[in-house]
């Protein structure tokens, strides 16, 4: 089981954040004939969010990666219900070199903050997430 622990300056203020890299899914790259090394990538700050049914990426990142949406979903947010948005097939690379080779994520606009990705309960469904508040750290294993 791969495991990574991150220490945050003030985890109560910033939340359980980590830097991740997004790229088109391995399945896409293999069938298009692009090597993983040559694939477009996007490095961004993600927050682990137990309040998110599934993983979200900032609107526009799919286009940055040069991929088309493969589907759509409906979402409820604090201010709106049943918003229709695109879904993309991506791979997610973590700082400890572990990765999820294919993950369907939803694209939604994330405002202001530095966060461009919410890691949701789809990833947590096969992970162990330990939030150690007094130590300003968290551990994610999967």
């Amino acid at each position, binding site marked *: 089981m791969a495991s990574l622990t991150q220490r945050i300056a003030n985890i109560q203020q910033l939340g359980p954040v980590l830097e991740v890299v997004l790229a088109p*899914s391995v*399945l*896409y790259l*293999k*069938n*298009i004939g692009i090597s993983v090394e040559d694939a477009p990538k996007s490095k961004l700050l993600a927050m682990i*969010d137990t*309040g*998110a*049914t*599934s993983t*979200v990426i900032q609107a526009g990142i799919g286009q940055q990666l040069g991929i*088309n*949406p*493969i*589907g*759509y*979903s*409906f*979402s*409820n*947010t*604090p*201010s*709106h*219900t*049943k*918003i229709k948005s*695109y879904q993309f*097939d991506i791979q997610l690379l973590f700082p400890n070199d572990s990765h999820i080779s*294919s993950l*369907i994520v*939803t694209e*939604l*606009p*994330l*405002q*202001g*903050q530095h*966060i461009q990705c*919410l890691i*949701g309960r789809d990833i947590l469904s096969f992970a162990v997430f330990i939030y150690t508040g007094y130590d300003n750290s968290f551990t994610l294993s999967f």
Partner: protein
Amino acid sequence: MLDKETDFFEKQLPELSKTNIGKYVLIKGEEIIGIFIAVQDALMIGYQQFKKEPFLVKQIVRFEEPLNFTNHSLII
């Protein structure tokens, strides 16, 4: 993007849901390319046949549960 595929899927859903609940349909334009048990299989066939062209992969369900997000940084 995917407007044609989405409209076609929504029209076909009553028929598709008679025998394919839980499976994934692959649609290009107004054509059903295949129905698959695993989403990865539908994506693989989509990429093999259509490369960088858009296509739709959608799970067949009678009622689509919305995804829920409590994070206030979502601006819609």
